């Protein structure tokens, strides 16, 4: 079990970049962007093909990020200039990207197992630092010996850096304008902001993060597959919603941290769920959907329950006061 949880935290940290992207579009821009299902694979495909072709994995990952940015911008253009409904522009882009991703890869699956990737390079870098031995010594007592701590720590670090950058960006003049675009479009337009441009930019950034995550996931898993993006948007939403529900979303700084927490927690939940003998790997999408449904419904049920109790308390209080009055009248007479 510890090994499984260790693995889910590693994967969760990588997926949290995608979740942060979904947070940008879904929460900040108030734009449910389904492009994500396509741009995640675009990131994986671009990185995989370039790496196989001999490009440095870091450069390949950067190119993946740029490809994701472009995909997001096109969705933004469809919505703002083409006046297509947000959901539909995302769906159109997602479907278009499926074919594009196949074209990029040339086949439906590109293996990376024998290649040097960002993950293998970072692992080697971490090993050269020699921290593993110390950590291994501490945890071996617990009978827990992961291959390396490098990926876990470096990916968490990366997620944190990205989070801090998003926090800072959303406090700049442009960042404030993007937030206002998602919050009150009439208002921000009356303050000389080009909402079309801001939306295009916001969606570009969001999908850049998603593609970044896709590129890293491909390198982490050792392959890029054209089907790996199916349901990514739901996983992103699950991470955002779980994170916000558990860790809170009062400020941006807290919300972005919550999203990372949510992404990791989501991985742990799924891993735990798959341990139940009855469930199979193919049930994962159903589990994800159920998690989102529950995360959306349960807070409402709790709220309703509280309301009910409050009313009951008030009724009791009123009855009590009434009784007192009655008693007072009786003693008077």
């Amino acid at each position: 079990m510890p090994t499984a949880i260790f693995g889910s935290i590693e994967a969760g940290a990588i997926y949290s970049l995608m979740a942060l992207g979904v947070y940008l579009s879904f929460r900040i821009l108030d734009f449910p962007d389904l492009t994500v299902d396509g741009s995640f694979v675009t990131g994986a495909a671009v990185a995989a093909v370039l790496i196989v072709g001999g490009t440095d994995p870091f450069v390949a990952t950067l190119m993946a990020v740029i490809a994701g940015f472009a995909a997001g911008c096109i969705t933004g253009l469809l919505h703002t200039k083409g006046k297509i409904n947000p959901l539909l522009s995302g769906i159109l882009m997602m479907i278009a990207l499926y074919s594009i991703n196949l074209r990029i890869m040339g086949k439906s699956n590109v293996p990376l197992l024998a290649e040097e990737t960002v993950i293998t390079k970072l692992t080697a870098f971490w090993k050269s630092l020699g921290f593993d031995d110390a950590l291994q010594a501490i945890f071996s007592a617990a009978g827990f010996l992961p291959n390396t701590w490098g990926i876990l720590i470096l990916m968490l670090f990366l997620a944190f850096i990205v989070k801090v950058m998003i926090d800072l960006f959303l406090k700049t003049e442009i960042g404030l304008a993007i937030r206002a675009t998602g919050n009150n479009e009439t208002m921000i337009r009356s303050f000389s902001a080009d909402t079309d441009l801001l939306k295009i930019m916001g969606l570009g950034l969001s999908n850049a993060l998603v593609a970044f995550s896709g590129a890293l996931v491909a390198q982490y898993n050792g392959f890029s597959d054209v089907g790996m993006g199916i349901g990514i948007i739901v996983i992103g939403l699950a991470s955002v919603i779980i994170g916000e529900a558990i860790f809170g979303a009062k400020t941006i700084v807290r919300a972005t941290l919550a999203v990372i927490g949510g992404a990791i927690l989501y991985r742990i939940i799924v891993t735990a769920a798959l341990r139940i003998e009855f469930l199979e790997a193919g049930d994962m999408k159903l589990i994800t959907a159920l998690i989102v449904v529950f995360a959306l419904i349960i807070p409402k049920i709790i709220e309703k329950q509280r309301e009910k109790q409050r009313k009951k308390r008030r009724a009791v209080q009123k009855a009590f006061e009434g009784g007192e009055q009655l008693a007072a009248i009786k003693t008077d007479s």
Partner: protein
Amino acid sequence: MLQLKQIHKVFNEGTPDEKIALKNMELHLKPGDFMTVIGSNGAGKSTLMNLISGKMTPDLGEVIIDGKDVTIAKEHKRSTFIGRVFQDPMAGTAPAMTIEENLAIAYSRTTSRGFKKGVTRLRRSFFQEKLETLHLGLENRLQAKVGLLSGGERQALSLLMATFTEPKILLLDEHTAALDPARAELITALTKEIVTTYQLTTLMVTHNMQQALDLGNRLIMMDKGQLIFHANEEQKQSLTVEKLLAEFQRIRGEKMSSDKAVLI
């Protein structure tokens, strides 16, 4: 400062729903003019505002602001020099953002936005100073989300945000209509104060005749897309609600519609 020349605007042209919103509209505001606009529903007041703000473009005619032809300039481009306060107190501010963030957005109206920090220490003290002029205690709540403020407070903040960068034109679109009488009075007083301080060229649409008479130095009355009555500075001083109603009846040969809404 603001000039409208021969403005024509028709909605749903060529359909049975065709409606002439503005016909031959001429308007000229000198710098510092504060003009109030009255008229019944459907008179074309909102269309007039939308044409100036750039939300719509006229079918014919020109809109000129400070000597520049802005007839077809985009809404967000124009809003660098046009301040607006809407009827809905929720429309002028971003509820999920804090008071200081809202002010920072308004502050960047006249410049192009970059990667500079939105709220700096210097700006914060400037915002505080400006908020003090509202006498609502908002200067102590800079980090409060605007969604937590009352309608009156939000409208006061909207008014401040629209004006503190000293726009060339200020458009007030029935900005006190959705408030209770006490709040409406407060916003009216603030409007008077702010417009006088900054000497803003202002156009204010209102349904409230008394307010139209109390504020500003000029007044126009519109009906069915046309300007039907204009009072200059001298004439306006001697106007009363009764005289305005009588004037309308004389020009149109009918009683002003929806008297109730108009008289409050």
